[in-house]
């Protein structure tokens, strides 16, 4: 009966973001919010684990004023309660600030057997939240999990690495970050959506976390975010025969390591 906690981030839906062609700056004025993709997998994984083993799932999120929009979305996906921190510092937080805040909150919230995160957020994709939280809390950390199970007090995970798969088992409280292929997040049924408003949420104020001002100062400062436009290579093969063109194309692709 594991007590699970899922940390999630409320990000902008990248589909709604437009890239201004003049200077490649981003226009996010019409972008709606969403739970970061991999975090959705983390929430789903926690919900599945609890459905199988019993126990309960809490959720925790740290963001700006928009974070309140995420609460019912989160609660419709399985968690029983969501803790939320809404603070201006989240606006330019780097991975260290995020981890400081989340770890401090977790210390306040209580003991969890499993703390789940997405492998990386859909906006920044630093992939540091899980390992930093684990370090701050003095807990083991398992990353790149694409399979997870829980028995007794032991978590068993399969890690997908670049050229192999690793089976890991960890006893006791552990922080795990999951890949998107670990599961397919449920489509909340209407009853689950409507049931979300009956579940509790609790605000945690940054001021109550006992953090020093420097803990909330980002060490990596974001200077600008620009769109990336894929430039076409526009290479035309004009050999006399189709066979020659294919040969040239093949050679070109091979030189780029593509075939």
């Amino acid at each position, binding site marked *: 009966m594991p007590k699970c906690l899922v940390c999630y981030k409320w990000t902008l839906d990248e589909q709604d973001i437009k890239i201004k062609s003049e200077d490649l700056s981003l226009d996010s004025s019409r972008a709606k919010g969403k739970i970061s993709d991999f975090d959705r997998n983390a929430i789903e994984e926690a919900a599945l684990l609890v459905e199988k083993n019993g126990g309960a799932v809490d959720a925790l999120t740290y963001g700006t004023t928009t974070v309140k*929009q995420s609460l*019912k*979305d989160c609660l*419709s996906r399985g968690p029983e309660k969501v803790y939320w921190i809404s603070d201006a510092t989240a606006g330019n937080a780097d991975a260290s600030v995020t981890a400081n805040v989340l770890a401090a909150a977790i210390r306040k919230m209580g003991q969890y057997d499993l703390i789940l995160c997405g492998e990386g957020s859909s906006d920044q994709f630093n992939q540091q939240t899980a390992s930093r939280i684990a370090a701050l809390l003095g807990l083991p950390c398992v990353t790149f999990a694409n399979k997870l199970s829980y028995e007794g007090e032991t978590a068993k995970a399969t890690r997908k690495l670049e050229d192999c798969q690793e089976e890991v088992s960890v006893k006791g409280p552990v922080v795990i970050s999951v890949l998107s292929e670990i599961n397919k997040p449920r*489509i*909340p*049924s*209407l*009853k689950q*959506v*409507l049931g*979300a*408003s009956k579940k509790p949420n609790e605000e945690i104020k940054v001021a109550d976390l006992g953090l020093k001002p420097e803990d909330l100062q980002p060490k990596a400062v974001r200077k600008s975010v620009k769109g990336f436009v894929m430039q076409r290579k526009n290479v035309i093969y004009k050999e006399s025969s189709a066979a020659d063109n294919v040969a040239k194309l093949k050679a070109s692709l091979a030189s780029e390591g593509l075939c």
Partner: protein
Amino acid sequence: MNFELTEEQRLIGQSARDFGKEYLEPIAVELDAKGEFPKKVVQALAKHDFLGLLLPEDVGGAAAGFVSYVEVIEDLSRYSAAVASIVNNHTIAAYTIQKWGTADQKKKYLPGMAKGELLGGFAIYEHGPTPGVGPDTLVAKKQDVGYVLNGKKAFVRNAGEAGVYVVFATTDPALGAKALTAFLVKSDAIGVKVGEKLETMGLKGCPVADITFENVVLPETALLGAVNGGAAISATALAVASVAEAAQTVGIGQAAVEHAAAYAKQRVQFGKPVATLQAIQTLLAEVATDCHLARLGLRNAALLIEEGKPFEVEAAMIKSFLARLGSKMLIDTCQVEGGFGYSETMPLPRLFRDIAGTNLLDAPGDFPEKLIAASIA
């Protein structure tokens, strides 16, 4: 005045869109090509509570309200308007039973309808000039045993798949429409004969057929609402249905304009994407505008329905608007996609055929303009 959806409504819409992407998008083309009733999809819809969306919790419904309902229909229609038709016709039947049914009738039918085990159909139209009048009109003769039904109903959606039909018959041919009465008829009642499935231009997969009633004996308990109270019931139910159907039109139109815009951005003629041409911009802009205004109009009508306020005029307005401008959405987006878009390997032809099946003026004696004019003059 708040034009925004509530959080729940927004999340319900998100679920509907995700459902559409996962369950409808992969089957939409084949469903249109073969027209086979999508049983698995209907089961999945039930599992996600879409079939009981409007029904109260005590019968297993989600009680999510009408604004959520039209949001769902719009989102499903973006992927398959045919499936949205199945849901709409089922829901109108369930809504009618919920609103006018006795406690027993509600207990008998609604839990199954919420679970998707029992699909609903709504049998109002006839081949004659108006329900209650004409050679084949459905007549319900009062007898000792209850009522005996003889006659024909036309163009019943979900025909052959529904387990229960809300049927309108006249108890007195001399009085015609004035004696229209609603009944609940189970599909397995003796004498209920579903005719051959009709070939529709689009919305294929939602079956349409005539139903013949041959000495169908109904007990008193099959009466829905008051004797001769059918006209009022069908008027209200059809007004609700027209708002639901408007959501289909908007969903189809939205999908079409998005596809046409994406096409225009990459189709290069005269050295530039055709999206840079004012001619194309005009076509896209008009469709996007009509879609947007229709959405606002139908949401307003939906809110009135949800709040139990008078809504019939607003419902008639949205129907009138889309009867005039609904098909134009696809006439114009198909124009943007030109020759390429005319191929059935592209999606707009299916959407063109589907949208033409929404907002049909099925009651020629009762154009929406009549009700609108009556409200102001």
